[in-house]
């Protein structure tokens, strides 16, 4: 990860419309943001789509970045994009008059191509509720502190800490075969 001074310079470049600086931001954050989307959707194609949408949004919104944690700002956009995706899926499902449960199972049980391997972690993550899953992924991929995550989610730090601890403990139990 770039030092904060370097990152600040890159962000200034982005604000000035420098394509090279945007390119550096993509190189720095694409992997983590992709991991975040992949673990939430479990689908490579959807993750590709959401990652593209994230960086397009970054170009549009960079002018509104007013300092502070860039990761926090970027992952807030990523979280909004993921929720927009979920809402879009829900609308489509409603139009097709399907039950909500069907949608949820579709989201957490994506269709995999033969080339995709469903790893054990992805399977166990499906057993956690959506909110906990998102919180764990936010913590892991954004690399934000608990304090920053609590601020981002507009909830007391004790609540964030408690939810995350319970979720990670449960994930550990599932992965260790309790």
């Amino acid at each position, binding site marked *: 990860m770039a030092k904060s001074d370097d990152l600040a310079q890159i962000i200034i470049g982005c604000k000035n419309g420098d394509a090279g600086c*945007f390119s550096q931001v993509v190189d720095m954050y694409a992997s983590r943001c992709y991991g975040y989307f992949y673990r939430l959707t479990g689908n490579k194609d959807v993750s590709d789509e959401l990652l*593209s949408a994230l960086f397009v949004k970054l170009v549009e919104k960079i002018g509104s970045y007013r300092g502070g944690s860039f990761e926090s700002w970027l992952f807030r956009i990523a979280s909004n994009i993921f929720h927009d995706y979920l809402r879009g899926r829900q609308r489509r499902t409603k139009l097709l008059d399907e039950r909500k449960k069907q949608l949820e199972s579709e989201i957490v049980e994506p269709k995999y191509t033969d080339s995709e391997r469903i790893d054990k972690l992805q399977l166990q993550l499906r057993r956690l509720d959506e909110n906990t899953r998102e919180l764990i992924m936010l913590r892991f991929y954004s690399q934000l502190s608990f304090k920053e995550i609590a601020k981002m989610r507009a909830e007391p730090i004790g609540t964030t800490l408690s939810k995350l601890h319970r979720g990670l403990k449960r994930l550990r139990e599932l992965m260790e075969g309790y």
Partner: protein
Amino acid sequence: MIDRNQENLKELFEKFLSAEESTKAVEDVQKAEQILRENPTPEPDDMLIANIKAEIAMRLPLRRADVFRRMAYKVATVAAAIIIVAAISVSLLEEKDTGPEKLVYASIIPRAIWESDNIATDDAELAVLTVELEQIEAEVSALQLGENGTNGDRAVEELQMELIEINSAFWKG
């Protein structure tokens, strides 16, 4: 940004849990995060990254144009506001300046008398005018009553001409 690696998890948990529970909670978090590290997700394709960069490069001129347009709208709005305020101010100032002018033109008193400083002369002229008007008025009444034995119509015409002359002489000052 607070560096996550410098975050003291134990201290943080101890705000809400006992020392023993905090130790256990920190262990839970660290082990779970170790599991996440041991199960990495696939990396985005190079082609995807190249496409994203190309799309960004394509959108940047549009963004610049958009930024310029927004700035132009802001400048135009501010300029319009300034022009409106200036126009209103000028109009208010003009109204103040033209007040006495309107009074001058609205007056029935000739401008020469209005602007004259010689009150005694002006009063004398007004007195003469008043006398002349009274005399004419008396003549008109006499004519109407046929008291002077002359041709009434002709006399009235002469009188009217006389009145017009007096009037124009008076308004000329």
